């Protein structure tokens, strides 16, 4: 039974979007998946639909799963549900909040930015690709739908299997009109690669510098090589969700100027969703772990990585080519060439 860090801030992921966009599908999948002991806070307790075999116990406001996850109702409000989770004798490893169909997920996410026992991981908003353009026409609803997308880290244009190209494109255009920098990815049944949800998993092993390595595939990814910016899955296998995301690996033996590196982080393109890995700074013996999500980032001392810099990123299909991205970071490297 692992409690990796009983005192550190708990990562919080918020899932938003209107009714029918696929929020519960995503929540149910995460609950059933296990691997990470989530406390999942939901509005519509009745819609939670996990395999009965997984359920350890259940009452009016909580479902305890065999895999360690717990699902809690927010019927008494987010504050109470959150306080219950934080005060529980056994803290979860992460918190997942399913916003109501009319809530602004960013408003909820802010609690993780300000409450010191929480850390915001990701705000995902789902959109019903087939119906969004019609839904935003509704005078009772349109402003609410736009508001809940405007500050999400990632917008999933979901249910692409049910949406025609033209309605999906209209939805995309409507979103971009309100939020020009939105990261939009097309999905079916809210299916997401693991590195999008949980962060990429850079390898701490020493690498031969100068050679671009592939990230280790996420645990439920197909076991083929995710060469950067491609998705060459075996024929006949549906990899549509892979098309929606592109990856980038940056490996360099050199130490950065810290100020230059931090400035470069600020200049990364909005299509990048996550960047994670180790880096080194000039005049600093320590290794540093970078965790960058949608422009929010932390650098923490961590010597478990390689001697140089090894970063793995994932972004939407709009992510620029690796060379362009490499150049953004290379600008922060000192003038002297590496070995």
């Amino acid at each position, binding site marked *: 039974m692992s409690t990796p860090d009983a005192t550190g801030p708990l990562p919080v992921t918020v899932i938003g979007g209107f009714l029918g966009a696929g929020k519960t599908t995503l929540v149910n999948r995460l609950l059933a998946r296990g691997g990470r002991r989530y406390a999942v806070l939901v509005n519509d307790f*009745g819609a939670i639909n996990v395999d009965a075999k997984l359920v350890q116990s259940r009452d009016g406001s909580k479902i305890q799963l065999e895999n360690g996850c717990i699902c809690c109702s927010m019927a008494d409000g987010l504050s*109470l549900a959150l306080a219950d989770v934080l005060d529980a004798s056994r803290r979860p490893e992460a918190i997942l909040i399913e916003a109501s169909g009319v809530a602004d997920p960013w408003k909820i996410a802010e609690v993780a930015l*300000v409450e010191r026992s929480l850390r915001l991981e990701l705000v995902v908003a789902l959109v019903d690709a087939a119906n969004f353009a019609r839904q935003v026409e509704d005078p009772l609803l349109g402003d*609410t739908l736009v508001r809940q997308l405007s500050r999400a880290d990632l917008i999933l244009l979901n249910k692409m299997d049910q949406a025609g190209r033209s309605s999906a494109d209209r939805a995309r255009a409507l979103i971009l009109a309100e939020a020009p920098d939105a990261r939009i990815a097309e999905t079916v049944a809210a299916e997401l690669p693991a590195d999008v949800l949980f962060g990429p998993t850079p390898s701490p092993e020493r690498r031969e510098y100068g050679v671009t390595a592939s990230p280790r595939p996420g645990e439920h990814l197909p076991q083929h090589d995710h060469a950067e910016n491609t998705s060459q899955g075996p024929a006949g296998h549906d990899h549509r969700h892979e098309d929606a995301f592109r990856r980038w690996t940056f490996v360099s033996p050199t130490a950065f100027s810290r100020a230059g590196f931090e400035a470069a982080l600020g200049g990364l393109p909005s299509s990048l969703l996550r960047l994670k890995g180790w880096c080194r700074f000039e005049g600093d013996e320590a290794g540093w772990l970078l965790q960058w999500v949608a422009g929010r980032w932390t650098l923490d001392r961590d010597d478990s990585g390689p001697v140089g810099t090894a970063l793995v990123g994932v972004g939407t299909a709009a992510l620029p080519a690796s060379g362009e991205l490499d150049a953004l970071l290379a600008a922060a490297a000192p003038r002297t060439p590496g070995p």
Partner: protein
Amino acid sequence: MSAPIKVYRARKIITMSRNRPTATHVALRDGRVLGVGEPEELARWGELEIDERFADKVLMPGFVEGHAHAMEGAVWRDLYVGYFVRRSPDGEMEGGLKSLDAVVERLRRYAETLPEDKPVVAWGFDPLYFDGRRMDRHDLDKVSTTRPVLVLHASFHILNVNSRVIEMAGMGPSTNVEGVMKDPAGEPNGELQEMAAMFAATRAAKVDFDLRTLDGPSLYRYAGSATIAGVTTATDLHNKLDDEMVDLFAEVTAKEDFPLRLVPALGALSWSPDDGIAQAKAIRERSTDKLRLGLVKVMTDGSIQGFTGRLKWPGYHNGAPNGIWNIAPSELKRTIGLYHDAGLHMHIHTNGDQASEFVIDCLEEALTTRPRRDHRHTLQHCQMADAAQFRRMAALGVCANLFANHVFYWGDQHYALTMGPDRARRMDATATALACGVPLAIHSDAPVTPLAPLFTAWCAVNRRTSSGRLLGPEERLTPEQALFAITLGAAYTLKLDHLVGSIEVGKFADFAVLDDDPLAVAPDMLKDVGVWGTVLGGIPFESPARAAS
């Protein structure tokens, strides 16, 4: 031989009954009204024992507060620091603090009365009247730099804290959240807005503003506030009402010295529709004379002054974006339909006119496809409904409980910011509602504004804002109409008009005991009519305010 019949003699009894509008004697038996009339008429029931204690008082039916919250009893655990004077449930006058310095001074004195290890917590703060000056952490540091100081605004959506709380919560220049206000140097200034920032601060300071902490003492405090105001029946108009909470209500209201009939409403959004309907029906069976269960509350939008009410065109006067829905309109329609079909009685919160219109649409659909006589579904607040909406409500048999106190407390703000002059005139359009034939009540929403039906009636009769502006004279009620709205009118919306709201044979002997005749004083003095206390089920309860002096 049976005991003599208790008769209260009063200077005047205003019965609110057509049968005998005024009288001087009321006879009681078993906590009910046996008769109203002259002593010789009443004596035909048997030997009378005339109680003269109210000989110089005026009796009215105990007032019915159709929209308030038992949280009124919980907030008084902490210090009230409002701009306006307010009477605590113990009868003390609190607040009336007309400057920031006065607030700080009051907090400082209060802090001295608390144990050293206790945080200093206050509520009801409203800087609206301080010429734009906001409170910051330096003000509260004058109260203490070593213990947490937290001051909740009257809106309940903003919190001011001192530097100690900022430090405990670990907030700093890098805390970039909209709700954490900053000073020009980029440091948090101690003003925290909305859930996220308030959650972090209250958690760090270990302060619980939570409704979950309703307990016996807070219910007694609520009843104390009611007695001071002449109220004998009051709602708790949003409560989850799980079995544990119903047990608490049942235990407390059963006590003979508990001076209030409570009407809690089950918050529909706290349950799935199936579970909520089952719970409402189950607890309805646990109703007693002093605890009436079965009412259901449905939330829709937010508030006008918080810019969260859902408005129709042209929206907020200052250009603020439209407000929020608590649940999706489609879900709202489904929920309303299901509770209606289940035969339950709904009170539905609507502030903005888009919310009230949508709820009227939902009720029209439900009532057209599944007609139900005498449902008495009621729109609560319903502040921006126009004449057309009231006409539809009348046609559908929908009642309105309007938030008349808004005219005084936020009327100037509505005029200048939220609604603009034209729409502000017809906020809480009491006279239009009556003219359209909509059954009408008016309310305080305590603790949002003070629990005081005579003040609420004064607001509806005079429509004066706190700055003295006459806001919408066409919507003024007559004193008779206003007194009806705080008695039988409110009782009707609760389906309790056969039990309370007028002094008539067979109804509970519940009276408001007044020093003066509210129909004889000048209309602008209505709020100043003194309240001795109440009689509940025949038992006198002197106002804690009187008992204290």
